[in-house]
């Protein structure tokens, strides 16, 4: 296996609020390998964005705080790195695509200006002509028609899909080695989502960047990701390659996610939602944070008393944080059976 380009090790991030300390991310570790697409899945508030944003220094501190852990990017720890060095990494070797292209573009600057800005920040010496040429080139790459003309336009003259393309153009402007896409399609309608997925693929082909895809859209994960990290209540609960996650999940939460998924290939009468509410991150449930909602725990004491460790659950690289991961391997058939019941 090649060397990981980004290693997040035992990262813990907390927010102090008036109601108490929010344990947004607790002891999270994962690696990112060159050229791969790593999907991070989880509900809102599961810490999937915070784990990335905090190491990039994009979480306001205070109230946020990285309690411990490190994030090694090409061997350098992003957490302890001086601010100005981290700034050079942001938008350079590590770039971000934001969720909502409606609000992530500056309304008073032209699209061209904003992409040029992204280039200029990291290439001070570059002549204006070169920057302009590169801007048009980037817009063409992400499939904005009439790029030559459209660089002069403002965000309000762009449709949602076109804006997201522009955002992607900005992100890949400096040929990043890591591209963090934070819910890149959530704010878009479904047909545009499909186009943006294609643009992301193009972007990756061109830059060979490793992509961290943060989303709660399992369809997007299935389409793009190579490996998947499933997060729940600020912890990694399962980690495996995308086929394994979909075919033989080894954590009840992942199983629940699969069952709550609307699928076009199976005739389902009902979707099975995961019962209950996402847990409070101020006072997380004792033991396994998922146990109050877990259909699988069946009231077993260990689920309430002991926090399960992330451990090897299956052949290959497949980690699960469930006390009974092995048991799931036997019974997981129910996942498919549950889906088949409706037909």
């Amino acid at each position: 296996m090649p060397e990981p380009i980004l290693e997040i090790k035992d990262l813990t991030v907390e927010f102090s609020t008036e109601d108490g300390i929010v344990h947004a991310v607790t002891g999270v570790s994962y690696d990112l390998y060159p050229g791969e697409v790593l999907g991070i899945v989880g509900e809102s508030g599961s810490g999937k964005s915070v784990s990335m944003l905090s190491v990039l220094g994009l979480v306001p501190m205070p109230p946020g705080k990285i309690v411990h852990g490190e994030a090694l990017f090409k061997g350098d720890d992003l957490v302890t790195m001086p601010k100005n060095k981290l700034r050079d990494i942001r938008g350079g070797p590590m770039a971000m695509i934001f969720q909502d292209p409606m609000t992530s573009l500056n309304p008073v600057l032209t699209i061209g200006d904003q992409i040029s800005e992204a280039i200029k920040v990291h290439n001070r010496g570059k002549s204006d002509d070169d920057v302009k040429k590169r801007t048009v080139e980037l817009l063409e790459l992400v499939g904005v028609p009439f790029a030559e003309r459209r660089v002069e336009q403002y965000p309000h003259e762009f449709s949602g899909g076109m804006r997201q393309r522009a955002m992607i153009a900005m992100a890949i402007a400096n040929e990043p080695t890591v591209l963090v896409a934070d819910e890149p399609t959530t704010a878009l309608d479904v047909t545009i989502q499909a186009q943006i997925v294609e643009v992301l693929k193009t972007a990756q082909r061109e830059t060979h960047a490793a992509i961290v895809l943060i989303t709660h859209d399992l369809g997007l994960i299935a389409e793009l990701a190579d490996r998947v990290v499933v997060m729940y209540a600020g912890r990694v609960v399962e980690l495996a390659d995308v086929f394994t996650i979909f075919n033989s999940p080894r954590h009840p939460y992942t199983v629940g996610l699969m069952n709550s998924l609307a699928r076009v290939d199976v005739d389902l009468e009902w979707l099975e939602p995961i019962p209950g509410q996402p847990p409070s991150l101020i006072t997380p449930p004792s033991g396994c944070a998922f146990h109050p909602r877990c259909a699988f725990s069946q009231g077993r004491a260990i689920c309430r008393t002991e926090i399960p460790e992330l451990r090897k659950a299956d052949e290959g690289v497949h980690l699960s944080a469930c006390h009974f991961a092995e048991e799931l391997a036997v019974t997981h058939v129910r996942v498919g059976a549950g889906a088949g019941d409706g037909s």
Partner: protein
Amino acid sequence: MLPFGEEPASVGSPDLTLAYESGVELEARSQWAYARLRFFRHRLAVASLVVLILIGGVAIFAPQLAPYGFDEQDLLNLNAPPTFDDKHLFGTDQLGRDYLSRVIFGVRTSLWVALFVAILSTAIGTAVGSIAGYFGGQVDNLLMRFTDLILTLPGLAVLLTASVFFGSGDPLKVGLILALLFWTGLARIVRGLFLSLREKEFVEAAKAAGASDMRIIVRHMLPNCVGPIVVTMTLLIALAILTEAALSFLGFGIQPPNAALGTLIDSGQEQGLETWWLVTFPGLVIVLIALSINFIGDGLRDALDPTQRRRA
């Protein structure tokens, strides 16, 4: 799952291609184009702009336009009333100086001071406000308490003391004193704007792109505040003209023989009501300038803030 056709959707998007190809030319208008459009619909503002440009032109070309020098005396015509047939359109003052020329040079001085004050105080106010609003916390606290301090000073008393202390008469000094008092309002406005702007996602996006604090303030956030800043600046010009006139009227502003509009009224009122033209003409010009600047400011505010759109 995402609904895909057999062929992956091509990277080129269809939505705008259609409009271009069908020959419909969509003329792209920038915010500025829209703002211009709205401004020119505001009749009073446009009229005021014309008036102000005329007055400004007179001020710039004062030496060429004034029939006499500002301190040139016509000793045969002391306190001559305004006449159309004679050579003194606005009459003369007690020293026989042509009053039209005095007023023209007065406009020149007053406008110059006002512009200087407006630009300097806008610069200070914008800098203080944006730094306070962007960084927040202790920096914000410190800067804003200082702003409050300046704001609570009794303006006129400070102005009078300062002009005695630093010496008055020099238009530059008067302008400097005014500017150091006038920046507070704008600082608060800009701070407020920055407080809300810094929470915007595009600021976070700029941060994620690796832009430095200074770059984010100047390149990403300030352009979003241009509207309110420009409007406040126009109103500051009007305020500066009036204050400078008041200061000069009280004898602490620009000193004779230099002509400023306030100075003219001051020396005029000493003569009493007999020589009404000495007070009336500079007074009218002050009113005209202040009014038209205020109307322009109003027009700009409506033009630059589309959410406040009223019946045009």
